[in-house]
């Protein structure tokens, strides 16, 4: 519940989000939790435990720091993300995992006070370089949000939105083709093919989220970022999305933020654990859940912090 609330506030592009997101809990007054965290800051250490590199790196982030005004939200994160893997970002609320995710398609740009340092490359191209337009970047790095956010348009227009703005289809037939394939790949075509003209907002929550995934893949991206895509869904809808992620992972690199360790264990090959803006530990999913190296990771996994 708390987790949901905080991430929702992250989506607000106003100065006030700065106060909640990534504020080291130690600065929050009078909290019992704050007390324990203060003690634990010392345990963090400078270096990430585990293996941050991977075999076939597609996204490489080196020494990334993010500031919201004076607030140091992410500190010195180095991580490689492979070409066709699912990597899950986990950690307690306000640990910076969503902030990190939003660096990968420069969604932090729209926040006035946000500042990103370090280098992030996509396929060896610097995404914060001056020659790269965030518009083009986002066509390659799609994003699915925590709360399903279909546009108040028809199902068809929702999926056709991306291809239309980018001019991907030269005629109506081609556009139809893209929309159908995308809906099919998102596993939604059968449910909606007779009501393409109905508003996307009329679908159930799980269907809406799959519509958003269809909308994302209609642009033909290389990476899909998912920011807690199931936190607003019921277990059955969640299971369908997880199956879908599994299928999609064959064609796309997927970075998923989740607060559910079971979900991370089910869908990902690698897991990165964030704590207070630092990347504490990265490793293969099995290893992290069975044999965590860092004390903080272990405490989180065993439910001692969360």
């Amino acid at each position, binding site marked *: 519940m708390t987790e949901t609330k905080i991430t929702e506030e992250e989506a607000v592009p106003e100065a006030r989000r700065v106060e909640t997101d990534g504020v080291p809990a130690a600065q929050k007054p009078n909290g019992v939790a704050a007390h324990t965290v203060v003690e634990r800051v010392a345990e963090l250490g400078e270096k990430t435990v585990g293996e941050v590199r991977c075999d076939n790196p597609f996204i490489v982030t080196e020494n990334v720091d993010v500031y919201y005004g004076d607030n140091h939200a992410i500190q010195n994160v180095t991580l490689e993300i492979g070409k066709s893997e699912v990597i899950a970002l986990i950690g307690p609320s306000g640990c910076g995992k969503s902030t990190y995710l939003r660096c990968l398609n420069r969604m932090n740009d729209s926040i006035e006070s946000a500042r990103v340092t370090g280098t992030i490359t996509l396929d060896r191209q610097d995404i914060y370089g001056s020659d790269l337009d965030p518009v*083009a970047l986002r066509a390659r790095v799609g994003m699915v949000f925590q709360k399903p956010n279909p546009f108040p348009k028809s199902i068809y227009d929702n999926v056709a939105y991306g291809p239309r703005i980018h001019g991907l289809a030269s005629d109506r037939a081609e556009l139809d083709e893209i929309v159908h394939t995308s809906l099919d790949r998102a596993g939604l075509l059968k449910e909606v093919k007779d009501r393409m003209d109905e508003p996307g907002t009329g679908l159930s929550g799980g269907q809406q989220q799959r519509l958003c995934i269809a909308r994302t893949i209609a642009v033909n991206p290389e990476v899909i970022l998912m920011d807690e895509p199931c936190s607003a869904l019921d277990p059955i809808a969640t299971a369908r999305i997880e199956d879908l992620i599994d299928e999609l992972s064959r064609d796309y690199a997927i970075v998923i933020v989740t607060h559910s360790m079971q979900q991370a264990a089910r869908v990902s090959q690698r897991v990165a654990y964030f704590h207070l803006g630092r990347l504490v530990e990265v490793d293969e999913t099995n290893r992290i859940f069975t044999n965590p190296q860092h004390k903080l990771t272990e405490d989180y996994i065993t439910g001692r912090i969360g």
Partner: protein
Amino acid sequence: MTASRKKSREIVEAGLARRRRKEATFRATGMLATAVGVIFLGVFFATLIVQGASAFKQTFIKLDVVMSESVLAPDGELDLAYADFDGLVRNALRRDFPNVSGRGERRELYRLVSVAAGYELRDLVAGDPSLLGSTVEIWVPAASNVDMLIKGNIDPSIDESLRPISDAQVAWVESLQRSDRLETRFNTALFTNGDSREPELAGIRGALMGSFYMLIVTVALAFPIGVAAAIYLEEFAPRSRWSDLIEVNINNLAAVPSIVFGLLGLAVFINWMALPRSAPLVGGLVLSLLTLPVIIIASRAAIQSVPPSIREAALGLGASKMQVVFHHVLPLALPGMLTGTIIGMSRALGESAPLLMIGMVAFIVDVPGSFTDPATALPVQVYLWADSPERAFAERTSAAIIVLLGFLLMMNLAAVIIRKRMERKW
């Protein structure tokens, strides 16, 4: 997959330049639109100040007036109401310009000085009858044409027939200037006089007092009624059709054209209740109906912002609903209500259309002294003066607007200060 991705990337890249241009155009349009309002505001204030600033100064002429008994009291008896003080002024002018001869020229000479000069002499003698027979050095207001000439609003270089002041008059004015008998001073008449047909005598005091009386009536009625209505609607009204109706009704009233309120005032207060026309009382009644919705809406918002926990705490201690409202909710909501009321009052102060309907548009010289005296209001005075063709009135109109805007600014500042100082964080 890879081939199709490559194709997609190429298409996206190809469209980027065009989309960036569109983006830049859109953004520039937005900036331009924002600038329109701001630039208008700048032009507007600049025009106003350029036109109106000079009205705060007025030209005066120094005369050596001989308080001749033979002029004032030819039959030995001084009657202030009928004594020929204007004659004294004329004599003084003739002495200053002994070379002026002929009726026409003399009449032009006399027109250098405002008709107010005679009144001032009368007041002087009324205050000190012993002045009779002596010679008094006195600064009297110049006629408005002279004033305009001095302020540069009349160009003496254009053809004589095109300006309201003759070559001879220009020459006399210059000679007065050379002998230091002419100077500009702060225009107190603007703030102490009522309206007048003579621009140099016209002041805004009558209008200010009219506005003042009206606002008193408006505050006295609209604030308590508005607050009471807001309290009822927020705290006591059952959710019913009736309260929905009141709600819709209040929102709508806030958007009804103000002139319609004027029609209401004319039909109800003047024709039906037979209240006096042109009276600040009626104006105040109309304006309170006009501002009531504003105050109710603001007061309801203020009550809503008081957290329910405070009500619950007081109710839990055994207070009655009414006690909770009057002892706890009302004091906490008061700053918001006051802010809303001040905003409403500033709207009322600037309102003129409904006042035209109830006869507050008459030419009224006397400064009103009560709620039922005929009066006008500051914005209506602006309207009346704006209609006058004389250049001197245009100047005064701008000055009256500056004063009006000054009051509005002060009221809004007060509202902001109250909001800031009494703001509470829950």
